[in-house]
């Protein structure tokens, strides 16, 4: 039985040491908590290589500490010593900045009486290694403890994580997108940042160019920009605006990019449990257009290798652009069974809704698409056929995939009235006919339960000016979960007519999940 047990919490990460003393000399090692770290993959000193390759560590985020307490080390004297043996490659152990071990099976000894702090520097994402501490007496091991040393996986954000900042491209000259950026700026203030689109060849699709990801472990945080191989006008933006200390930019894949390599086609579900298996960070969702048009294999392989957010592939073969953000989203809802609702565009609901309103209702904004009144939408039999095909052969099957893969239940689904149109320039493929309201930016609040959402203005009204008269807005507000505050954003010219919407034209940085590495560690133990 232990005669003396203490919890020792020394700044930064908490290391739990239960010091066991038996009689007058130490004969057993205490229990040690695993070491959770983040890989040292950034480039703090901007020397053009990952910090792991440097000779020394130079940033607080570069390592995780492991404390050997005074209570323990005071007993490590005379003929008693501690031997630390690294059991796997992929990390380094330092003592007072001096490299002690970096290969499997290398070891070193420690003596008391002063407390010791070891630092662990990890090479890569999502590694799981171990080291051994042996209690030596006269060079003979009388006790040993094997301790896990794990690095955090790269995690994509989901809509239940608090948002910190939304970014969008702005052109504030004549004919520019002031309405769009002002809608964000007016609500979010300092939590909104705009970049000048004239610096980036008027490429407004900031969602597509990169995805924010995070690494987190016991007080450590690193934001990462996953830079797509899309490489259009915004190609340089991640390096220009984000790359720096504790904020690296990485790309997986190379060569010819399909539309599916844009990151409007890379999203994540909220945390879920499916058939008893817990996904504490949700699951990644991306779309496949066809066997020739899908996410780059190298990126797929990397995302799968992170294990935590096991990807799900949906069929986006009906969409001209072909991104998953075009037809669904997740919103926080504290009253929902799992804390979220799944909003998906639904053609049948679209027709039901159109049939419920005045067929003579004027929609002048849609005249360029061939419709001036609701009746014209309802009387277009080809439009009806086109939309029925999409609902039956793509929307419902995609819902079925999610029923299986994320355990989606009917009560979690909000079917959002919508129609698709066959595009003149896309030869069979579609985009939403009305601005795709589910293609919204979600600024989730600290509590993870409420949010401001920035929704494409549907312009389903006789006059462009007055949103309060808009029949679609009235309907859409009524189906949103409580706790969601919707702001309708004019994205018609710069986004909707250019085959994207608000989500496509914005990008959101979110707070990483708490205790990510600990949860990741537990996740791996599930399997």
């Amino acid at each position, binding site marked *: 039985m232990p005669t003396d047990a203490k919890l020792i919490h020394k700044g930064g990460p908490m290391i739990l040491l239960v010091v066991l003393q038996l009689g007058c000399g130490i004969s057993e090692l205490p229990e040690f908590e695993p070491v959770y770290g983040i890989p040292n993959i950034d480039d703090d000193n901007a020397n053009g290589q990952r910090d792991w390759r440097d000779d020394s560590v130079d940033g607080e985020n570069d390592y995780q500490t492991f404390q050997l307490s005074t209570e323990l080390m005071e007993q490590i004297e005379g003929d008693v010593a501690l031997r630390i043996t690294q059991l796997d490659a992929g990390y380094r152990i330092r003592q007072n900045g001096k490299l002690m071990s970096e290969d499997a099976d290398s070891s070193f000894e420690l003596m008391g009486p002063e407390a010791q702090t070891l630092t662990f520097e990890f090479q890569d994402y999502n590694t799981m290694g171990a080291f051994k501490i042996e209690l030596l007496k006269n060079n003979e091991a009388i006790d040993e403890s094997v301790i896990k040393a794990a690095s955090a996986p790269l995690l994509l954000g989901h809509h239940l994580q608090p948002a910190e900042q939304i970014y969008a491209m702005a*052109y504030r*000259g*004549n*004919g*520019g997108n002031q309405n769009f950026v002002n809608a964000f700026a007016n609500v979010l203030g300092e939590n909104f940042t705009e970049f000048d689109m*004239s610096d980036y*060849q*008027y*490429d407004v*699709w900031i969602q*597509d160019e990169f995805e924010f990801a995070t690494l987190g472990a016991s007080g450590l945080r690193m934001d990462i920009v996953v830079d797509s191989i899309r490489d*259009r*006008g915004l190609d340089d933006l991640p390096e220009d605006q984000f790359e720096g200390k504790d904020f690296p930019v990485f790309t997986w894949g190379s060569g010819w990019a399909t*539309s599916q390599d*844009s990151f*409007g086609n890379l999203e994540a579900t909220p945390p879920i449990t499916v058939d008893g298996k817990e996904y504490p960070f949700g699951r990644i969702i991306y779309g496949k257009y*066809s066997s020739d048009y899908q996410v780059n294999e190298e990126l797929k392989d990397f995302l799968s290798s992170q294990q935590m957010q096991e990807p799900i592939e949906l*069929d986006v*073969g009906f969409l*001209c*652009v072909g991104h998953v953000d075009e037809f669904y989203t997740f919103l926080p809802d504290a009253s929902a069974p799992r804390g979220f609702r799944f909003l998906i565009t639904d053609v049948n609901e679209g027709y039901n809704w159109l049939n419920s309103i005045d067929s003579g209702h004027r929609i002048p904004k849609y*005249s*360029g*698409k*061939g*419709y001036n009144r609701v009746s014209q939408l309802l009387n*277009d*039999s*080809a439009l009806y*056929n*086109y939309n029925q*095909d999409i609902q039956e*052969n*793509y929307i419902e*099957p995609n819902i079925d995939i999610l029923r299986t893969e994320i355990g989606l239940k009917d009560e979690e689904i909000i079917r959002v009235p919508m129609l698709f149109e*066959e595009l*003149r*320039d*896309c*030869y*069979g493929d579609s985009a939403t006919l009305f601005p795709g309201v589910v293609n919204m930016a979600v600024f989730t609040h600290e509590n993870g339960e409420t949010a401001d959402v920035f929704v494409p203005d549907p312009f389903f009204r006789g006059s462009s000016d007055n949103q309060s008269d808009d029949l679609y807005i009235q309907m859409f507000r009524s189906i949103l979960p409580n706790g969601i505050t919707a702001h309708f954003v004019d994205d*018609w*010219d*710069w986004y909707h*007519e*250019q*085959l*994207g919407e608000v989500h*496509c034209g914005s990008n959101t940085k979110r707070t990483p999940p708490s205790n990510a590495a600990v949860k990741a560690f537990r996740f791996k133990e599930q399997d």
Partner: protein
Amino acid sequence: MLSFLSLLAICQTSLAEPDFNRIDEAQSIEYKRWRMMPIPTRAGFLRFVGSEIAKPEWTDLYLKRFYETDEPISIKLALLDLIVRTNGNWQKSLFNHYHSEPEPKIRRGILEMTKHLDIDEKLNLIQTAANDESPIVRASAMRAIGYCPKTNFNKELELGLEDDNKEVLEFAARSVGWKKVTSLTSKLTPLLEHNSGDVRYQTINALKKLDPQKALTLAPSLVNDSDARVDRIAKKLLNIR
């Protein structure tokens, strides 16, 4: 300060004719409309941005630009898109032009503009296009037929179902289904063995509408089809989860 449209023109010089730097505020609005440039959509093809530029009073200017410049096809297609959006009177002019247009992508572009038109000239154009030498134009004609619910295009559709191009077959099958041309059901069935998944998908989808019982009979052979859509439809018909 340069106007937005002028800025677009300058930033897109790689897509355009030279001398955009000559554009400034002193130029007339007509000149700016003449010189403005489209930008890539999210899908990659070009479109002109803005509702202000898509007004009927600009239709003639855009038509003139379309006819009189030798701009790249991608810009001419963007001009066609803009011309439709103006809701102006372009139909007669472009339909006449169609017959002398040598570039199949432009002929297809003009056909794709007809979707919401309710005029007889459109029907003649589709008939002509159904026999075009270019498969991309014939495919577009098959699509356009689907948007003519009241017109009998059975002859053209039958021709489409015998085409050797998979895109033509795909959209011929779709239009047969949409228009419920039951007389062509037997022409559809062999297409279920076509090596294109797109063709098989549109075919089983059309058969489902035309003759559900026949589709059900054929479904077992389509379970586990390499095209996921075909597999899904077959399993749904057979109530296999």
